[in-house]
């Protein structure tokens, strides 16, 4: 088994079709993307004893929701810590480890839900599952970049799109499974965890065993690298332990952190934002949200859920679309567009809300969320352009700490400013205006960070004999059957 997982055993044979690698990566990313859909379990988990409504012994919502924060924290941490290990052992072993952590995490959570032990849930879905998220997230990145040197953005966009799309599959599936397993004496959560754990384990194992690495020196048929002097794309490699000491790494860290902070801030408040800004207008009633009846509020909430779903879709489309576009226009220009266009979009939100222009309001947020997703999907290719492909997986892992910081910063900023506005007597419909200007400010900072990204100085490059597409076997460069 150990040999089967080794890096050497994943080297592709002659004639291997590189288009088999993206679906393998997608199988893993679609599985771990369920992290965004875990919210579907929170309410049922607060009723495992009371069944129809929370009993006094049931967990509080805040107790179970913290699982998500733990998972995201361990996602960033494990990606940073295990990135180098991944580069050494190869993507298959990392993918199998991710499958064991994520699938096994669900099984541990099932024990927790069955025995009403919250620690099992935190350990399973939070800590162990979070490590599975980190390992799974970075596992295909450098492999895809090596297979698609001509379309790095498209390749990583295809995989990372899956992380955005996982919740679209997992959340409704989880909901259906819980309804299937629910009885008058059980909410059906632990059984759902068992089924999902097994399904995700199998899907991720299939993905991990689908990974193949190209032979050293392999290039796609008919492709020649662009002359380095005329582009931001290096043909050299920077070691992961050196990369994070360069100003370029921290400029890119700032780029990711600012882009994610703004986007995740919006995502975290999307539902209350549209409800409070438009209130009754969403259902054709000219009244503020507070003046609606309970039934009307439910109707408004379901429309807001639709808005959140639409944003998820925009997030996914942006991951593939912007990352692919970056292959044509360059990474730096792509992020310039994100930050410049994004800042304009955020400043237009209060006006669209004040004028009651729902289609314009929705369109603005759709564009913003495409750029949020695009930022995630384009960053691995940006890193490969600047630091080379050899250690890009490990460097990407360390850069994901920016995501962890942004995950705290964005929602904290949005909630703090909103609360401050409300405390000062600002109407709920106007409580987000200042927030939007602050988020636009974050994007201006991101714009400056992106401006600072330049090619790495030659002294940071690895010596030629240390570089290459991979450390595995020697052999003649092969061309793929495209």
């Amino acid at each position: 088994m150990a040999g089967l997982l080794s890096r050497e055993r994943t080297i592709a044979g002659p004639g291997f079709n590189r288009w088999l690698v993206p679906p393998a990566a997608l199988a893993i990313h679609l599985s771990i993307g369920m992290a965004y859909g875990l919210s579907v379990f929170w309410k049922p988990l607060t009723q495992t004893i009371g069944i129809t409504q929370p009993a006094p012994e049931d967990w509080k919502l805040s107790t179970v929701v913290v699982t998500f924060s733990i998972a995201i924290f361990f996602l960033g941490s494990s990606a940073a810590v295990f990135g180098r290990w991944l580069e050494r052992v190869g993507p298959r072993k990392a993918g199998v480890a991710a499958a064991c952590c994520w699938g096994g995490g669900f099984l541990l959570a099932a024990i927790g839900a069955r025995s009403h032990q919250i620690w099992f849930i935190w350990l399973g879905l939070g800590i162990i599952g979070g490590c599975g998220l980190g390992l799974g997230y970075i596992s295909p990145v450098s492999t895809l970049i090596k297979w698609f040197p001509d379309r790095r953005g498209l390749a990583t966009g295809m995989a990372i799109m899956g992380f955005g799309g996982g919740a679209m599959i997992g959340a409704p599936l989880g909901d259906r499974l819980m309804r299937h397993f629910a009885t008058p004496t059980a909410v059906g959560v632990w059984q759902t965890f068992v089924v999902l754990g097994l399904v995700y384990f199998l899907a991720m194992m299939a993905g991990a065993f689908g990974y193949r690495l190209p032979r050293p020196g392999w290039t796609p048929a008919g492709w020649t690298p662009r002359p380095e002097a005329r582009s931001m794309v290096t043909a050299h490699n920077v070691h992961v332990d050196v990369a994070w000491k360069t100003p370029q790494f921290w400029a890119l860290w700032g780029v990711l952190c600012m882009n994610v902070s703004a986007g995740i801030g919006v995502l975290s408040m999307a539902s209350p934002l549209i409800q409070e800004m438009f209130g009754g207008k969403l259902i054709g009633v000219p009244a503020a949200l507070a003046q609606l009846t309970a039934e009307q509020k439910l109707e408004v909430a379901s429309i807001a859920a639709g808005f959140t779903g639409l944003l998820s879709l925009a997030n996914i489309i942006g991951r593939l679309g912007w990352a692919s576009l970056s292959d044509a226009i360059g990474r730096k220009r792509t992020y310039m567009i994100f930050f410049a266009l994004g800042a304009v979009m955020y400043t237009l939100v209060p006006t669209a809300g004040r004028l009651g222009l729902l289609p314009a309001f929705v369109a603005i947020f759709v564009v913003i969320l495409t750029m949020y997703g695009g930022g995630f999907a384009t960053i691995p290719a940006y890193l490969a352009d600047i630091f080379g492909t050899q250690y890009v997986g490990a460097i990407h892992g360390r850069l994901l700490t920016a995501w962890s910081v942004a995950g705290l910063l964005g929602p904290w900023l949005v909630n703090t400013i909103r609360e401050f506005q409300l405390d000062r007597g600002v109407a709920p419909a106007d409580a987000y205006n200042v927030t939007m200007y602050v988020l636009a400010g974050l994007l201006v900072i991101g714009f400056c960070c992106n401006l600072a990204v330049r090619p790495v100085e030659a002294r940071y490059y690895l010596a030629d004999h240390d570089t290459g597409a991979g450390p595995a076997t020697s052999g003649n460069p092969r061309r793929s059957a495209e």
Partner: protein
Amino acid sequence: MTESKRHVGENRATGGTSWLAVALAWVAVGVPMLWGVWMTLKKAALLFR
């Protein structure tokens, strides 16, 4: 089995991938994704009702 024989076996197993295998792999991940997109669009349609 020696290391070299193992490599030959692996190469034979992965060499000359057919487009049918590629299509099947994409269908395996594409169908659940399309189902997820469909479910999301159904929910989002409420916004424009």
